[in-house]
């Protein structure tokens, strides 16, 4: 067996056992200084090398305008900044095809009422409560990395398609509940 084959086999085995490679992932971290410190430590531990750090939305906007970004992790309440507005603007930016669909993970130490709905409606992918733990962050990173969800753009929303497909009953079978989908009709439920 060649060295290359050995390597390929080893790589596939490691992936099967659960391997993450963030060597070439470009990750934008947006938070205050201490938040950035924590996020940096977590992602450095994960093996990330290309971390872009922004303590303001102005700096974050410059980064997404200039550099390719594969993942955005941002605090929701930055002083003097509308994070939800920043994400909405990014998602709607047809001129930035490379970054507009980057997965966004929002962070918050205390979510005011309505924050979750606002996070959902701005087009973010996940909302994670602080204090952060490597385990939760890893789960979310792996989730968005494996996501095959489409993105949808309407007059009022741009972001991950939040509809979940409900499997219909087999042809000829009538549901017993009022809410059961009609046979042969694909039901689409908007869960957002």
């Amino acid at each position, binding site marked *: 067996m060649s060295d290359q084959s050995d390597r390929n086999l080893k790589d596939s085995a490691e992936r099967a056992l659960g391997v993450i490679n963030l060597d070439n992932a470009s990750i934008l971290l947006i938070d205050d200084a201490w938040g950035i410190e924590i996020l940096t430590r977590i992602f450095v531990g994960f093996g990330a090398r290309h971390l872009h750090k922004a303590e303001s939305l102005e700096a974050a906007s410059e980064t997404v305008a200039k550099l390719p970004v594969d993942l955005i992790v941002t605090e929701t309440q930055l002083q003097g900044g509308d994070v939800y507005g920043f994400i909405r603007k990014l998602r709607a930016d047809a001129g930035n095809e490379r970054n507009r669909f980057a997965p966004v993970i929002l962070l918050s*130490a205390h979510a005011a009422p309505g924050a979750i709905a606002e996070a959902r409606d701005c087009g973010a992918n996940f909302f994670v409560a602080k*204090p952060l733990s490597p385990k939760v962050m890893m789960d979310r990173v792996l989730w968005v990395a494996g996501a095959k969800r489409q*993105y949808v753009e309407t007059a009022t929303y741009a972001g991950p398609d939040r509809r979940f497909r409900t499997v219909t009953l087999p042809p000829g079978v009538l549901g017993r509940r009022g809410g059961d989908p009609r046979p042969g009709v694909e039901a689409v439920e908007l869960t957002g």
Partner: protein
Amino acid sequence: MSGARFHSPTNHLGKAVTQPGGKPVATALADAQSQLDDAAEQLAGRIDEILGEIGALCARPGGPPPDDLYRLAREAAGLAALAHLPDLGLAAHALCSLIDLSRRAGALPEEQIQVGVGAMRLLRHPERFSEEARKMLLDDLKAVLAKALKTASA
């Protein structure tokens, strides 16, 4: 016609993480935890600064400005557990909820805020209390929060 446009963009993160190389997830988690543990003392130092800033705010004539107090309590809630002070984090989170409720009600009830701030100060040194005493302190804070919630929803 709904007017919705659907996109199936390349998942660049997905492509990156599955490249050959990298590290086992278990190792990555252990390395990240080790990185955080190395920062625990620094973070405890920041918690002390926050408590000092909160103390200064509370000493102001007319009471602490709610937005500033909320910002500091929120920061503490996000950092405390990583500084190995999880109970202080819970107290800070409860204080955030109290401030949030009172902001919506239009006024900060000084006594309730003092209970929250006092709990944070005490829990900065959890080793001084038994587990039972810490639990009682947090239960009292929860009771204050529940009362405030009840008042707000009345």
